[in-house]
């Protein structure tokens, strides 16, 4: 991949998913380097729309929320609540013309290893149609002084 096509990922994941999450997240960090940032949450239900917007604002091209399989949330409905919050966050992105699908929710498979590296590897390799975030190089240099407001 060319450097300008290298995407930045932010991953919010439920800590209940993987007992060896530190080991497995480091495994992915060794491969993806600073292009991937992990945000472990006690439950995916703790993820707020604000977390997702901040991740995009701070440079992520693609934000993934990794939840427990449906019906398997330790706190009953955390993985259902985050679904609604993600939809809300998507609606906020739509309002400003940023692709809502930069926010994604993935439920871990009901069967399979409790290993976030194994779960995420195929997701990270997927072709990504939305490209780099238009926010990435969007820092605006301009006159912020009160006198410059009409310029």
């Amino acid at each position, binding site marked *: 991949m060319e450097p300008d096509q290298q995407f930045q990922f932010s991953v919010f994941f439920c800590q209940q998913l993987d007992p060896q999450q530190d080991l497995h997240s480091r495994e992915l960090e060794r491969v993806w380097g600073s292009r991937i940032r992990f945000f472990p949450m006690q439950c995916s239900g703790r993820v707020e729309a604000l977390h997702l917007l*901040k991740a995009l604002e701070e440079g992520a091209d693609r934000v993934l929320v990794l939840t427990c399989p449906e019906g398997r949330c330790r706190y009953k409905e955390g993985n259902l609540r985050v679904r609604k919050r993600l939809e809300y966050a998507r609606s906020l992105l739509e309002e400003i013309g940023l692709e809502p699908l930069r926010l994604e929710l993935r439920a871990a498979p009901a069967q399979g290893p409790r290993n976030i590296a194994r779960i995420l590897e195929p997701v990270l390799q997927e072709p990504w149609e939305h490209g780099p975030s238009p926010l990435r190089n969007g820092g*605006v240099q301009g006159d*912020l002084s009160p006198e*410059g407001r009409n310029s």
Partner: protein
Amino acid sequence: MITGTRKPMEEILAMIAPYRRVLVAGCGTCVAECASGGEKEVGLLASQLRMDSRLRKIPLEVGEITLDRQCVYEFIDQLTAFLEKYDAVLSLACGAGVQAVAEVFPSWVILPGLDTSFLGQTKQAGLWLENCRGCGECRLHMFAGVCPITRCAKKLFNGPCGGSQAGRCEVSPEAECAWHLILQRLESQNRLECLEEIYPACDWSRQQGRGPRRIQREDQRT
């Protein structure tokens, strides 16, 4: 609680268009409870505005602050230290809060970020219902704590209209019939005789027609 909903983004963007430094100011009381103007919502709106400015390549600096209340001078005063850095304040308080801030800082531009809606209660998570019109003549004691002025679509004072079905309002089936509730509760309290009383129409002059209402208590004044 005073409720409100955030204004559409286009309206907000049009309001702030002339300004380069905008302070998004939340209110930690009523509008925080109804998830439209508290600290979280300030963060969300500020983040949206920052991203929007980057997308449209418009220079904009967005600050964030949330006061405990925007309708009380002691709290509004906390803005004093920040205002010099901003061209405008986008307030996520109710209309009362916006006006109070505008009165304290008359030379600053204070913009409303919410459409203030009604006095209501949090019925369940994410659901707020209007239950008080602020008519100025509360008779809830006669109606077992259910306001027919607010919760009856026809504002009937002297009994049900007869159109409700299975306890739901015929005008808005998603709402419970206020008179159905009143009857149920009075019956459970053995106070059905309250219904025999004929109530005079509400004195609307207390609510409307005399300009802005005021409450003045000498014991509270300095």
